[in-house]
């Protein structure tokens, strides 16, 4: 039951697009310098990771027991720490950590599946289908997060407001202090930039062959 303790938390960690990106970058930089207070604050931000792992495990029919999920959480925290020097701050910390959590969980589930140890509590679910879906999400969230991280912080923020916060163009306009029409144009320009990044990533992969 210990994982559930880590799942709790105030709304601060719910990843609103209004979360201050400069704060995220400054926090990460302080953590990397070894500042103890920053480390404690960063640990609090990790609650969202615990929450994500718990939510996804439940959605999959809870194949992992609490102590196993605890191991996945430790693995995820370790990977986040290992990749932290590459955090640029454009994608926001919660969004940036997400694919790491999804990939670590799907790796653990794949390993479990290979051992024949999957224990879905719902007999109607097909473990292979669920696992494939989980791996698909891991791959897609990796691509998307990397592309978002290459956008300007402003553009990445509009995309997050729209899809993470489900904000209307009216709301986005209010938050950014511009008319709704401008917010809409900014959003579609951001998607355009995102398309270009995603296409360039796939081109680079093609050229490398």
């Amino acid at each position, binding site marked *: 039951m210990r994982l559930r303790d880590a*799942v709790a938390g105030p709304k601060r960690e719910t990843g609103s697009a209004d979360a201050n990106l400069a704060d995220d970058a400054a926090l990460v930089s302080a953590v990397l310098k070894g500042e103890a207070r920053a480390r404690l604050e960063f*640990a609090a931000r*990790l609650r969202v990771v615990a929450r994500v792992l718990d939510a996804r495990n439940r959605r999959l029919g809870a194949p992992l027991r609490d102590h196993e999920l605890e191991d996945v959480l430790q693995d995820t925290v370790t990977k986040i720490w290992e*990749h932290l020097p*590459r955090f640029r701050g454009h994608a926001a910390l919660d969004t940036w950590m997400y694919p790491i959590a999804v990939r670590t969980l799907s790796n653990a589930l794949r390993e479990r599946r290979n051992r024949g140890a999957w224990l879905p509590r719902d007999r109607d679910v097909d473990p292979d289908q669920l696992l494939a879906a989980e791996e698909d999400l891991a791959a897609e969230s990796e691509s998307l997060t990397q592309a978002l991280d290459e956008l300007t912080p402003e553009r990445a923020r509009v995309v997050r407001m729209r899809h993470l916060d489900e904000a209307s163009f009216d709301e986005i306009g209010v938050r950014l202090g511009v008319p709704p029409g401008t917010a809409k144009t900014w959003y579609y320009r951001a998607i355009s930039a995102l398309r270009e990044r995603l296409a360039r990533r796939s081109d680079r992969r093609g050229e490398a062959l």
Partner: protein
Amino acid sequence: MNSRRPSAHDAAHESALEELWASEGGARTPAVAQRLSACARCAELWDQLQAAEASAARVLGELRHDMAPRSSGEGAPGEARLDAMLQRAMAGQKSRPRVWPRWLAAAGIALAVGLGLRWAREPDPLGSDPELGATLRLLAPAEATDARDRFRFEAPDDGGWFVVEVFDTQGAPLLRSGRLAASPWSPQPAEIARIPQHFRWQVTAYDASGNFESRAELRVEP
């Protein structure tokens, strides 16, 4: 694949199309339709724009769903335990070298900065050649009165697979097919019964290595 490269396409077309996408708010207006029918590359770009938007909606939608506070299991904060995990990670880091993905090391730091994060255990991205935005067209059901026993779509056959998903109009997931080699997907009768009058369905294409390729959606709405 050269026809897919921007260099094979009039750059003025590209910027004009992106301008059109922004000014029409992603809608397929008559002006857009005219442009798309006149130029195959523009049509392909349009599909990529829609796929990019759909990808942002799906990934961030999943994240939103996963992060939503739940009434059960919300107990005392667990920072102390998470801090202990973080410190274990930090301690492990000091005693062993960082594992850089081999392709990232080869590509150099400049590319690493451009690419953002990647990690060692993911499938090797060099082993695939995804054609993002490859043409994917959803055919039926397209109207609320259409039968729902067969979800038909048109897609290039490149050895990959497809996944069909059905959502309600609020975006909540309702059904998901397994991996499909081809159109159509025929849901089970019990699944068909769960599809409301109005809904949204989408097809995601993956290449043979499982890399995301493209996605298209169709809204069956009033």
